């Protein structure tokens, strides 16, 4: 499936959960949703989206936090899967598996095509784990994935795109943070 198609499904099912996008998804998500509960994590520290999302999910229990994480970002912080399992929260980790560093032009990841991210999440102790290769299956199961309790890890196989430009945030970070906190009712 294409990244845009996968995120369209997410937009239909995210409800009032926070959505944190990272890397390539930042270029797409603002065209689908632009609410205070959308946090486009750029400028970022690559790999820290899953940790940031866990911290936020622990801070606002019951809200639900969805992190759209690339496979390259996941590889940079695989240990966070263990932490996510150890501290249950309503965190929904979508792992976009395109086997590329898309924002740097499309170089292949180490282990491209060989890594079972759903298996890694399961082995780390996350109990609700899903993997979808097709848009149809993701569309059909998205409600179940996103409406049950967290933590959840969901791997989506995405067609890699080469030659993409590095995305820019739709608004400055401080404005994003102020909007997010207002949306969450945090003073």
């Amino acid at each position: 499936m294409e990244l845009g198609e996968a995120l369209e499904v997410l937009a239909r099912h995210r409800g009032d959960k926070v959505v944190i996008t990272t890397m390539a998804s930042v270029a797409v998500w603002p065209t689908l949703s632009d609410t205070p509960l959308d946090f486009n994590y750029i400028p970022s520290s690559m790999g820290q989206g899953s940790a940031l999302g866990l911290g936020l999910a622990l801070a606002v229990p019951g809200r639900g936090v969805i992190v759209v994480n690339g496979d390259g970002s996941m590889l940079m912080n695989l240990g966070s899967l263990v932490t996510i399992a150890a501290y249950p929260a309503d965190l929904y980790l979508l792992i976009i598996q395109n086997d590329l560093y898309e924002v740097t032009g499309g170089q292949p990841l180490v282990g491209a095509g060989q890594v079972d991210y759903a298996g890694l999440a399961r082995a780390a102790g996350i109990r609700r784990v899903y993997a979808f290769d097709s848009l149809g299956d993701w569309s059909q199961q998205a409600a179940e994935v996103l409406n049950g309790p967290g933590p959840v890890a969901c791997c989506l196989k995405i067609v890699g795109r080469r030659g993409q430009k590095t995305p820019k945030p739709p608004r400055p970070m401080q404005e994003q943070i102020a909007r997010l906190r207002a949306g969450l009712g945090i003073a």
Partner: protein
Amino acid sequence: MLEGRDVLAVLKAHGVNHVVWLPDSHIGCWDEALRSDPAVRLIRVAREGEAIGVAGGLMLGGKRPVVMIQCTGLFEAGDALRNVVYDLKLPLFLVVGIRSWLDLQAGKAWDSAPRFALRILDAWQMPYTMMSETRPLDDFSEALDRWLATGQACALLIPE
């Protein structure tokens, strides 16, 4: 050496509600005390950069965490620190154990870790306080006072 129960008390007195940590042998002695009180939730992570990311999320959500790591982990965590402190502009409070600092001061330079700890903090433009051996709890409390008063990221260093 500070006792864990004293550290817990000073954290609670300053409204700290989470400790995100990957401890070393010195800080690790506080483990039992820090997991004894539900008012301060202890979160263990797998890597120091991850600790800073988790703390960043907690701060976004209105919580008041403290990160506790060794200086070797600080070296690893540089990009996470840069992002949380300078991009997100969140008031990160770090407690950093400076491994072999006391040996270095005594002229024993067997470990390269203490040679770089302060320089790394200077490079990241992080204000820091070195905890004294004579009044460590006061130093801890005063560092937290300054942190809350300024709302600026800073570090408290523990000589080891």
